[in-house]
């Protein structure tokens, strides 16, 4: 695992960025190396700074978890639409469960932040309100690699 000794794998600053209400996209693949991808709504970085719980619509999760149970590799792209600051977290699937009612407020808070940012690129909040959030699943993953994903020279390089 790529990690600087003595430093958390996901820094406090990066954790705050990831949880700030971003565009979140998850990539997986099936047995035939056919890629699949879905949108997710929110993330929580665990206190160990290595594990993440990602919240997404149950229908999206059901199809994806079928892939993950056989091939646990997972890639998650986080991006802020206005600044295009982005980070790709790669790692492996740990578990899945239904999101709890107590988690709903945090999920909706992050979606609200994402929608506010979408307004910055000309997408009215009312138009984004067509998103279906619930029933929501929570997928837990362990991060093993972090990559810079802001577009331009250097995109795709490991985050330092």
């Amino acid at each position: 695992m790529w990690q600087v000794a003595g430093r958390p794998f996901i820094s406090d600053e990066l954790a705050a960025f990831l949880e700030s209400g971003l565009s979140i996209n998850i990539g997986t693949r099936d047995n035939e190396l056919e890629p699949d991808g879905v949108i997710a709504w929110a993330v929580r970085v665990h206190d160990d700074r290595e594990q993440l719980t990602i919240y997404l619509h149950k229908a999206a999760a059901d199809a994806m978890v079928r892939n993950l149970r056989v091939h646990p590799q997972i890639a998650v792209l986080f991006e802020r639409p206005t600044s295009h600051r982005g980070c790709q977290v790669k790692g492996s699937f740990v578990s899945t469960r239904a999101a709890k009612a107590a988690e709903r407020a945090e999920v909706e808070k992050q979606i609200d932040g994402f929608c506010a940012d979408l307004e910055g690129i000309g997408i009215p909040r009312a138009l984004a309100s067509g998103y279906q959030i619930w029933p929501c699943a929570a997928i837990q993953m362990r991060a093993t690699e972090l990559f810079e994903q802001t577009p331009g020279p250097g995109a795709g390089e490991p985050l330092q």
Partner: protein
Amino acid sequence: MIPLESLTSCFQGLLPSWLYTCSRSGVPNVAILSHVDYVDPSHVALSFQFFNKSKRNIAENPKAKVRLYDPDTMRAYALRLRFVRTETDGPTFESMQLRVEAIASYSGLKGIFKLLGADIYEVLSVEAIDYEPGMPVASPTVQSRAQAEPRLPFTLKALREISDRIHQAPTLDSLLDAILETLENIFGFKHSMLVLASERPDRLEMIASRGYPEGGVGSEVRVGEGIIGMVAEARKPIRIAGILRQMLYAAAVAKRAQERGLTSTDRSIPLPGLANPESQLGVPLIVRDELIGVLCIETDKSYRFHEDDRAYVEVLGGYLAIAIQNALLKERTEEAEEHSPVKPQPAPVPVQPRPQSKLKLEYYKSDECILVDGEYLVRSLPAKILWKLLHEHQAGGAVEFTNRRLRLDKTLNLPDFKDNLESRLILLRRRLEERCPEIQIAQSGRGRFRLELGSAVELVEQP
């Protein structure tokens, strides 16, 4: 399968799309795409701007998935794809490249933010994503967006109307305004400008505009810069939708490039026209391989110009180019005829003198540029003409001039053929109206004009 043609609005570049790939060893990857273009009923093209992980994955494993949104409803679609080939020329590549380069030039990123190729993919399936249904088409939000910018059809009747207006324009001067006025009245294009090729091969100059607080006549556009400069360079139309999003994307690239010392901190040029245009459409005005100028239409609304608009305005541009060139030739021919009837010019707007009684005009010989009371007025051939008129007026009180005399004047260095004198005079007259109304040039007949001074002038020649 949902027909690819039915997703036209998803291919406008208004919203980002996501590309999912997977390496041969099975590691998935997600990337944001700036452009997904429709190619034909079974192919799309994805922009390839950087050698990144997705590109390496596709080289190992041609399977991919793209998720994209309809910008009108936010309904999401998933396309299952197979990589076929990378194109580095041809119409798909060129159309994508021109859009990318126009954005790059606005952001000072020419040469860095560029299209390396158009990756062509076969579309194996298209499905609407059930849990991302977006807003119903009938919802008030979608309807209000649609009503905010109603589509105006290019009908034969509309084309006949514009043709009539053009035929009725008696002079080149009135033709230029008639073109832009008709584009608004008939087609609803409220912000437009015409820039014409100038005597300098690397520059174009704005000669007429409509819908802006400041006319901007005489503003220069470098060939190859911005949408107008790119249209002039490539001699092909460019349509850009969602400029804000693409500029933000380019700004992110610029920041990274600056951090790595690949570009200077600020080489961006201001957009001519609207401060924050969302959609722009530029078409070249060409007659028999000669670039007459560029017509640029823009709006602050996203997704205003469709692919059909581009095709229609391109056809219209060919017609306008001929009309402008004909008007130029007609004025030159009639100017040679003796006893041409004097056509009275509308009375000039009363001159509002500046606080000081005397205007100081400085002509900088090395730059061929005139400043009035220290502010830039005009440059190049129109500057040389104005300087000549003012000198003759000061020396012998001349107020009446003819195009013919100017044309024969060797000090102006006009080319023997296609000197564009008429358009230079129009530019000078309009520039004076905007920036120095104390000096006016009024047409007093075919090929004749009159210099009118509302203030005393002091002429100073600088090296």
